[in-house]
């Protein structure tokens, strides 16, 4: 059933994302084309260039705002409006429902980032010698591989920890949206308003604990606990602490959403 849920979740969200990405590319291309005529010294030419560039920058930020909004809108609409009458009477578990929405939201978030970076490449076409850039990137890559090998296995551990941290943070940011709506629907009235309140409430709590952890970690005496700790090992431990904290935060959002949706759904 999860694969079917994923299929429909994908269809329902793709119809928003594809036009958004299309618009971003269109603005990037239009902006880039307008620069082809920059030798023509004309006020309107300048106005056009600036307008298109501003439009592009606006769309660039817009992609991320839209990603957030579409994820939130889809979740609310599909769960807590009239559509919820169908969603909650499908023979699927709440766990599967949430997993499908989480996976698709995660994929779109990653796509939006890739697309945004790619749009910059479009804008720079012809201005930058890509072969030199690739050459330099290749050198950086070689250097990186060398450094990774030199500091192995510590380097691999740190890299793994870093990637996991980014993935978990992204999952937590999506689950935070879900948890907010799950809390927001508890009273039955003012669902959206309460969800927005819950979202900021979660943010404040998260900031508080995040800052506390950040303030404490430098003062911990690692050598007492890990007598062999030095340099890179300290980094590993700090990252591990952050990873555990992030895991706890992510799990809390997930469990809160799951429990509320399983036990307290009251569609009115």
């Amino acid at each position, binding site marked *: 059933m999860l694969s*079917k849920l994923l299929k*429909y979740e994908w269809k329902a969200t793709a119809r928003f994302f594809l036009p958004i990405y299309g618009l971003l590319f269109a603005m990037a291309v239009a902006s880039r084309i307008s620069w082809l005529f920059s030798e023509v010294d004309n006020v309107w030419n300048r106005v056009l260039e600036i307008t298109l560039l501003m439009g592009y920058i606006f769309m660039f930020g817009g992609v991320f705002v839209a990603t957030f909004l579409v994820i939130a809108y889809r979740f609310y609409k599909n769960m807590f409006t009239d559509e919820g*009458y169908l969603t909650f009477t499908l023979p699927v578990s709440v766990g599967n429902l949430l997993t499908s929405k989480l996976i698709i939201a995660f994929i779109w978030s990653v796509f939006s980032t890739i697309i945004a970076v790619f749009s910059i490449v479009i804008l720079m076409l012809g201005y930058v010698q890509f072969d030199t850039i690739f050459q330099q990137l290749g050198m950086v890559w070689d250097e990186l591989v060398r450094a990774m090998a030199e500091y192995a296995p510590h380097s691999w551990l740190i890299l793994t920890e870093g990637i996991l941290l980014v993935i978990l943070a992204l999952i937590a940011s999506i689950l935070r949206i879900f948890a907010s709506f799950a809390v927001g629907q508890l009273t*039955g009235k003012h669902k959206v308003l309460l969800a927005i309140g819950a979202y900021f409430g979660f943010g404040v709590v998260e900031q508080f604990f995040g800052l506390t952890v950040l303030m404490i970690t430098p003062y911990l005496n690692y050598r007492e606990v890990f007598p062999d700790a030095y340099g890179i090992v300290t980094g590993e431990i700090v990252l591990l602490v952050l990873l555990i904290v992030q895991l706890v935060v992510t799990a809390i959002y997930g469990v809160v959403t799951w429990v509320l949706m399983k*036990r307290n*759904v009251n569609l*009115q």
Partner: protein
Amino acid sequence: MNPILECRNLNKHFQGTIALQNINLQVPRGRIVGLLGPNGSGKTTLIKLANGLLQPSAGQILIDGMAPGIETKRIVSYLPERTYLSEWMTVRQVIDFFADFYADFNRDKAYDMLTRLGLQSTARLKTLSKGTKEKVQLILVMSREAQLYLLDEPIGGVDPAARDYILHTIIGNYNPNATVIISTHLISDIENVLDDVIFISRGEIVLQSNVDDIRETQGKTVDALFREVFRC
């Protein structure tokens, strides 16, 4: 065999107001049951509880002996009193959707009914009128070979001709072991198809009876009895 629907001391209240009070009910299999009551009597609340869209405040509601969950959703076909389909989908897409999720969905039956009611499967739902959407929903719900059909106001929004066709479909198309519960206040329209009636008033069951008994022992139609019981 256990009853398809059973309520044991079922209570539901919403922030101070009592929607259902101490409901004890057993609905057997193979019946067409009218759940009748004035507006706000608790018909929709009872049906939503049976679908797991609301959680009981106290007591139990059981479908085929089970609390509402994945297993009961497989065997219950529910028509809510509102339109729950995604507006951006076409009729064909929602048929695929139902076929994907409900193993008991009969695609041929759905297309057959669409043709009979003159509906286009390529139409997007947002282009359809409210009454047409209701027809599409009813077709989807009745195209399942479920054990329990919960129809909340199924004929309220459609024209009398379609109403006849729909009622005909309900009695003609379902499996004899399945039970259909129809909530409505349009009693005279459905009276002839009902086997049993449940009268509900202010969150309490005031009568559960066989339609023939009402006619024979009281010498009245259900509609007349309803007007008598619920006289304002």
